[in-house]
């Protein structure tokens, strides 16, 4: 098919496509972190989990030829990282932030170590659904190539919001995140709730990693993640610990991230690389704008070491 000249329309279209493509790992990592933080613990190690998820997903997909087995393996690997983090934090006097930083470096180091043999070979990609079939403009078709994991992420955000409101598990997580004493008084063991929340959060971050290596950019390199795992943690704060807000925040972040390439595609090349900083600048601006000198951070789980 011939590329059709669509002029400036290419910019919003490219941003939309970019938002969908770039945001998926953010969605998974921020939902994972949201769950962990709602239980009153911070896992800063998700960047490491993400990278390790990327390599384990890639390796398993390559060895088995099935990208979905890769995603599963990434989730399992992520859960193991989460369990390790949660288990270490159980001990008295251990700080979750410090453990998180150690886990981040550990995860990345381990991933690079195991990843050496997988830099060359090509693993199968995750499939995408062509929602743009109705149009014969290739740009529209390209923008509406939606990966299954993105859809899964959107469903997951809604499901998690519903879980926090209407299931026993969700309420238990919120109780533990808000007041350890109240949880104990109810006979809930805060440590095991946090352990499982961190494990589940790790599993989600692992899936985010599999998306990176199996779909976009779609190969394993040591630079597969450019700090998505860390930015996603900031997104959780910006989203005020609400899963649905996490989804929108990730989308917004992905969209601004696509600004640079989109402008480049319509021929604006002057300083376009400055636009690569746009998502970070936007996050800073939004965080400052939504903060208040009078109120404590709204929606923040009270047991979080950030807010204590």
């Amino acid at each position, binding site marked *: 098919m011939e590329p059709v000249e669509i002029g400036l329309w290419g910019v919003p279209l490219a941003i939309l496509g970019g938002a969908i493509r770039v945001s998926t790992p953010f969605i998974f990592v921020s939902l994972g972190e949201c769950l962990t933080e709602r239980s009153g613990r911070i896992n800063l190690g998700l960047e490491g989990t993400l990278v390790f998820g990327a390599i384990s997903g890639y390796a398993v997909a390559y060895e088995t030829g099935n990208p979905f087995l890769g995603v599963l393996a990434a989730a399992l690997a992520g859960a193991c990282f989460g369990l390790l983090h949660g288990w270490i934090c159980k001990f008295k006097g251990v700080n979750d932030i410090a453990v998180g930083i150690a886990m981040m470096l550990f995860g990345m180091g381990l991933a690079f170590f195991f990843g050496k043999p997988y830099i060359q070979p090509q693993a199968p990609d995750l499939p995408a659904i062509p929602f743009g079939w109705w149009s014969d403009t290739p740009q529209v078709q390209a923008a509406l190539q939606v990966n299954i994991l993105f859809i899964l992420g959107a469903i997951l955000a809604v499901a998690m919001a519903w879980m926090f*409101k*209407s*299931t*026993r*598990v969700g*309420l*238990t997580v*919120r*109780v533990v995140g*808000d*007041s350890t*004493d*109240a949880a*104990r*008084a*109810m*006979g809930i063991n805060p440590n095991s709730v946090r352990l499982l929340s961190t494990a589940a959060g790790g599993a989600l971050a692992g899936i985010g990693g599999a998306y990176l290596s199996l779909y976009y950019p779609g190969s394993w390199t040591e630079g597969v993640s450019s700090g998505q795992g860390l930015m996603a943690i900031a997104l959780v704060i910006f989203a005020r610990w609400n899963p649905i807000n996490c989804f929108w925040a990730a989308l917004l972040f992905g969209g601004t991230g696509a600004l640079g390439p989109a402008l480049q595609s319509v021929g604006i090349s002057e300083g376009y690389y400055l636009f690569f900083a746009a998502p970070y600048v936007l996050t800073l601006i939004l965080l400052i704008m939504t903060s*208040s*000198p*009078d*109120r404590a951070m709204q*929606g923040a*789980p*009270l047991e979080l070491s950030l807010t204590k």
Partner: protein
Amino acid sequence: MIHTCENGAISVQTLHTTMRFGAFTALDDVSIDIPAGTFHALLGENGAGKSTLVKCMMGFYNATSGELLVKGREARMTDPKVAQKLGLGMVYQHFTLVPSLTGAENLVISRADTPGLIDWRRETRALDAFMTKMPFHVPLDQPVSRLAAGEKQKLEIIKQLYLGNRFLILDEPTSVLTPAEADEVLGHVRALTQAGEITVLMITHKFREVSAFADDVSILRRGKYVGGGSVADMSIEDMSRAMMGEAPVISTRSRRDTVKQPLLTMNGIKARDRTGLKPIEIDDVTLHSGEILGIAGISGNGQMELMEILTGQRRMEQGDIRVNGAQYGATRAEARAHAIRYLPEEPLRNACAPRMSVAENIAFRMFDAGKDGKTAFWNDSGAIARNAATLIKAFNVKTSSPAARIASLSGGNVQRAVLGRELTGDVKALIVSNPCFGLDFAAVSSIRDRLVEARNQGTAILLISEDLDEIMELSDRILVMSEGRIAYETPIATANVEQIGQYMAGHH
């Protein structure tokens, strides 16, 4: 002894309970009988071991030795869950509702059989039906953090009844309530015990409540059982003698004439309350030296915010505070220069570093003060230790050692330690909020003596209190706060409790 009532109330006995924290014995061979369907009061001075005893009954602490009988049968309380299964429930001294959950969510999640999926429509209907049978009402659709203290207390009790608990332990349930609220709540609780639906064990410092509502009383002193029996057979004198080991000394506070000069003025202050929704507006208040200015009001009408404005914890949108004519922003330097001290409410949270030691906490005003008025660089650990020794003795703080974490002290003793710190040295102004919350009567009387004494020396005292009796007893002048504003002002000479009560309730 009756072990169960027809309507479900159950009996509990402790036999030879002993509890040690390291080398410190908090409870020593305590045995108490509480027959089904009775209202039992537990008395004792601060640090006597009351909270420790009930925490052992609830399985929060594992008693070092001793037995617990529930319905006449031995029960091993290894875990709060066991207690809950046996029908024992407790309302703690510090609230245990989860602040960001709504009342309904708090109730449903605390149930043992919360379904995996919560059908909110059905639950809401069931809760509404349940609430119509309750003696008091609390909005269930709001996050608990938005409720006033009295409402939280009611919700705590409602929660226990909702859980179907038949033995209720109330740890100082009325310390955050106004006398009228307290009477209302306790009246309903009493009716439930008389109907044989529940058995109640209540910790309190207020003899009035004991004689008005309790059937029996047990008294602890330094971890030992020192007396008790039927309330009808005991006079208040008997009880207080057992509690303190001697008859109470009634102090006669004399007020001297003092020179009253304006010291601190608040002008046109506007700020937001803690929810960020309602305004706080203080137009024109002047605090004079040598006076006690009482601020009365029902909790949640902006007193807490006023205190936070004065301590610099809350930002003002408009207006200014001046001390001796100079702008005052409540920084440490300013507070030190003007010799202004504070005793905020919940001192453990607002005026202490909970994990630091008692000695360190009571050194906060002096540790960096050098000899010549400059700030010192090196800590003088000798001076800190001496300061701790003097204050612990002078203010009768019960602690296992000055090196113990301040968070391990009983509620009343934290209050005393902080008050000791704030009242030492040359104090020009003292701003206090509910200074006697949770204190036993001897401590109350000694703290009030100290306040009046400071006033006689010329200190300006701003006394924010929800206890109207306290305000009437101590103040030279009274302001009433209602809905975030000063609604009324009167000198003590013309103060009338009924009229003040009406302004407090906003009927004007």
